[in-house]
């Protein structure tokens, strides 16, 4: 079943040389329960694309349809409700630095109006899921990058989302930590049947957990398909370039 459907999405920004299109007429869809990757070099429009999916960026034209509802047609209040069901994690974690880990995880429930006692109990459960229960009373500043990202994942889970958007979620982490975060994402994808859309510039992130991949170049879709097939027979220069810079395992195994 289609969870997210994007149709003719266009988003432009004012640049030094007039309007430049960050995302230029893109259409694709994401199936329910799938881990969908978007890869591209920096400036390819990935961040803009993922921000359009929960209307953090307002598209200039085109449709975003989630569970059959066109986000454009939703009223402000309905959109807010819908957003609560779309979790998001970021490269820089974006945790509230003046709140404890537990209170960070409680935050989305606070927004949704969940009673404090229930919120705390649930937050502890989610911290347990990400393996950080013992850090509940710590402040984010005392945590490592990987731990911070795990708190961010627990926070995203706290809203009981159906979709999680990952904006370069592992790009600030070392390879080992990246692996543990990716495994955690895969686990929550399977355990909670959460659809994940992740954007990255790292091939191995895609290879590790994505079912399908969209290769973005200059705001347009260069390629889209199953990860293995797409990476094994790159059709476009865009993907070939990515494969070379990314030192992909697939590519290395082919050449060796």
């Amino acid at each position, binding site marked *: 079943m289609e969870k997210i459907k994007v149709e003719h999405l266009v988003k432009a920004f004012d640049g030094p040389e007039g309007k430049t299109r960050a995302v230029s007429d893109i259409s694709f869809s994401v199936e329910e329960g799938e881990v969908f990757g978007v890869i591209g070099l920096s400036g390819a429009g990935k961040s803009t694309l993922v921000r359009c999916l*929960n209307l*953090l960026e307002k598209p200039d034209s085109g449709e975003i349809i989630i569970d059959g509802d066109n986000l454009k047609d939703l009223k402000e209040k309905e959109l*807010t*409700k*819908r*957003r*609560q069901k*779309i*979790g*998001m994690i*970021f490269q*820089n974690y*974006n*945790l*509230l*630095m*003046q*709140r404890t880990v537990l209170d960070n995880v409680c*935050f*989305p429930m*606070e*927004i*949704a109006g969940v009673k404090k006692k229930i919120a705390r109990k649930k937050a502890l459960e989610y911290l347990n899921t990400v393996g950080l229960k013992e850090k509940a009373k710590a*402040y*984010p*500043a005392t945590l490592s990058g990987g731990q911070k990202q795990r708190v961010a994942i627990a926070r995203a889970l706290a*809203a009981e989302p159906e979709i999680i*958007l990952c904006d370069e979620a592992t790009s600030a982490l070392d390879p080992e930590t990246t692996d543990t975060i990716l495994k955690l994402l895969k686990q929550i994808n399977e355990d909670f049947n959460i659809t994940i859309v992740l954007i990255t510039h790292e091939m191995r992130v895609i290879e590790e957990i994505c079912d399908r991949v969209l290769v973005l170049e200059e705001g347009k879709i260069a390629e889209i398909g199953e990860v293995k097939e797409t990476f094994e027979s790159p059709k476009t220069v865009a993907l070939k370039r990515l494969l070379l810079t990314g030192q992909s395992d697939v590519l290395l195994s082919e050449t060796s």
Partner: protein
Amino acid sequence: MEFNSVLINLLLEGLRDTLIMVFISTFFGYVLGLPVGVLLAVTDKTGLRPHPVVYKITDFVVNILRSVPFLILLILLIPFTRFVVGQSYDTIGTIVPLTIAAAPFIARIVESSLKEVDPGVIEAARSMGASNWTIIVKVLLGEARSGLLVGITISLGTILGYSAMAGAVGGGGLGDIAIRYGYYRYETKIMLITVAVLIVLMQILQGTGNILSKKIDKRK
């Protein structure tokens, strides 16, 4: 005048009046200045809800109020002060112009504290479906809390300075004593003692503010 109980009483009274003026004016200064500071931070072009017209007008008014020298403001406000508290002199009469002088200053300090909040955290809150109001209260004011507290300390210090100035035109407090006894009556000793008390007061305010703001800051 000898250093005796009369002098001590005089100083204590002055200290009391100064503290009343400074704290009440700062309080009302925040009642007026905090919302204006939030408005400036929110409507600026990188803010939560950019609104160039509202920002420019507020910015302009704040700048105008800040450009008027305090003594001039004090005199200009005499009719208004009389209307509000019934008198334009002494401790009570000084609170009104002090508040009016403090508010735009406080608005700027609040604005700059709020602008230091990481835009990424604000974006994260938006992605969670937080309303602008929730973001202002829980994210902006919450995350900026230690900066805001430093701001309160700076405001108290600045208003303490202004309050001493008000002594020149019939305000109460330590400034008044320094001018009446020390300057007009050539009792240099009293002037120096008064200034010393003001110095100690400033040190206590700043020191306490620094300790508290460090204590509530969990970013490090």
